């Protein structure tokens, strides 16, 4: 199995190739700094690639169990859906819905319903309080939706 450093260096070499290719269109002064940086990135990625054959990576990126990645993946999907839906449904409603959903998802082991109800109420209170503070006091105009 490939170690983390080798995978990382290959991804970085891909970034090096893409940015170098893109930089061909820039004006001479516009390309000067990014191209220098891209070459340095290429050299460092190669060093990391070579080192990956001699030194074993201590980090575990692709060896962790499903047990760890599944809740992370589920929470990530919920967060992405939260952000994507904000412009369509509105900031307040989306935040109440997804804040509560994530709380319920992470609280699935809590067996007493009153604890869950207490946490959901805390969630609604926090969202409402911060929404009012930012929207009304700090005058941040959030995307409007169904209700607000």
């Amino acid at each position, binding site marked *: 199995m490939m170690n*983390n*450093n080798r*995978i*990382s260096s290959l991804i*970085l070499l891909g*970034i090096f190739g893409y940015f170098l290719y*893109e*930089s061909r*269109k*820039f*004006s*001479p*002064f*516009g*390309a*000067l*700094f*990014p191209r220098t*940086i*891209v070459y*340095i*990135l290429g050299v*460092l990625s190669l*060093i*990391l690639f070579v080192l990956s054959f001699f030194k074993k*990576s*201590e*980090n575990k*990126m692709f060896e962790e169990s499903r047990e*760890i990645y599944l*809740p*992370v993946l589920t*929470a*990530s999907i919920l*967060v*992405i859906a*939260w*952000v994507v839906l*904000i412009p369509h449904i509105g900031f307040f409603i989306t*935040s109440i819905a997804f*804040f509560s959903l*994530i*709380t*319920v998802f*992470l*609280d699935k*082991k*809590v067996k007493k319903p009153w604890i869950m109800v207490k*946490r959901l109420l805390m*969630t609604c209170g*926090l*969202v409402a309080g*911060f929404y009012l503070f*930012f929207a009304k006091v*700090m*005058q*941040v*105009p*959030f*995307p409007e939706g169904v209700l607000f």
Partner: protein
Amino acid sequence: MNPAILPSILNVFLPNNLLLTTLGVGAGILVGTLPGLSATMAIAILVPFTFTMMPIHGLVLLGGIYCGAIFGGSFSAILINTPGTPSAIATTFDGYPMAKKGESYRAIATATISSVIGGLIGVFFLIFLSPLLSKASLKFGPPEFFWLTAFGLTIIATLASKSIVKGLIGGVLGLLLSTIGIAPIEGSVRFSFGTVSLQSGIAFIPALIGLFCIPEVLSMIEKKDTQYNVIPYKRQRKIITRVFARLIRRPFLLLRSSVIGTIVGIIPGAGGNIAALVSYNEAVRASKNPESFGQGNPDGVAAAEASNNAEVSGSLIPMLTLGIPGAPPAAVLLGALLLQGMRPGTELFTTYGEITYTFIFSLVIANLLMLPMGIYSGKMISRMITRIPVSVLAPFVVFLSIIGSYSINKNIFDVYVMLIFGVIGYFGRKAGFSPGPIVLGLILGQICEQGLVQAILMGRAAGSIWQIFFTRPISLLLIILTVFSIAWPIIRSRKGKGRLLK
């Protein structure tokens, strides 16, 4: 002595001014604690309200907010590894590891006392050295800015404690990301991936929130515990006395960090984040135990906090004397001055002497007020955070991250940027890449590129590019510091080996 000084000292203690300073510091701490809400934003929002106030009242309020916000950034940096303001980036390096060891309150107490001392030293410089230091700042041209950023980038060696190659790659990636958008010279649109929103570059704050905040939330979820037990709050006796005694035994750490903060503050364009990073690096370099930094060494918190609070007064020196703000919040304060019909320069210290000196002395009060406010609110926030269940804390941090990223430009695209950087930060951390060097590259990239390209143009016009980079006195000093900064870890490791052989 300026005749306005004595009445100004008395003005500061008038009930109205004391109340406004207290309100300003309190509001500033609140704003600073919330990631994404910067001191600049808080001052900018309040400037129109101060228009109807008397100039003294308005300035005193805004000064309190500025001090409080820069200090407040340390709370979230320590407790949830998310710098509340960019100035608190370096505070996360040791503050959060301290919190993870159950020393959150000790870290907050260290941050509070160091911030107060740093802030007071900064005000001292503001009062006595304004004219002298502001002249030096005017000598900074593009080559000096280029070398200043080169010196700043040497901090990567300190930040990348585990792998220097990965640290360098992180820094280079940050520099590369900073080139996204319109080029400073000739205006080519670079690496925008066909997106209009990227033409103005990557918004720094959303990227910062994403890199620091989202990986933390995901790692909270990874752990199966229901309580945020990575930062258990340990009750400790006489903690303030012990922290104070520890800091008093390190006068050079605080003095050096405060002086660095003031000097960086004076230089236009270099903000509290650079001040704190440079001071942190110097604290590591001067330490007999450098490997303890990044693992929860209180000296790291002290260096960063003393420096970023000293930077507040530093940034006001060129603003008050020359009309050149040293940092973005100072630029907004300049707007507040102009709104009141006061023009920076000698007139401020003569015609408007009483107003100006009242404002300056109110910063002393603001810094002193941070002590009780920081210590009590710190204890409260520290206890509160550790009692909130992960199921509420994790989505709450995401909620704050969304608000923080959105509120800067009121653009949903910035929230997407925050999420993308969050994913990069999460997988980067798994692969052994720390977010510190990436953020450093992102901060310094634009200043570095602008300095480099403008210096080359200046060199071409003068007939020699090398001369412009290598012969100017401040540039030479910065080159020496850069070389020394790179060579020092090697020298020290050799010295260490020598000691071991003995």
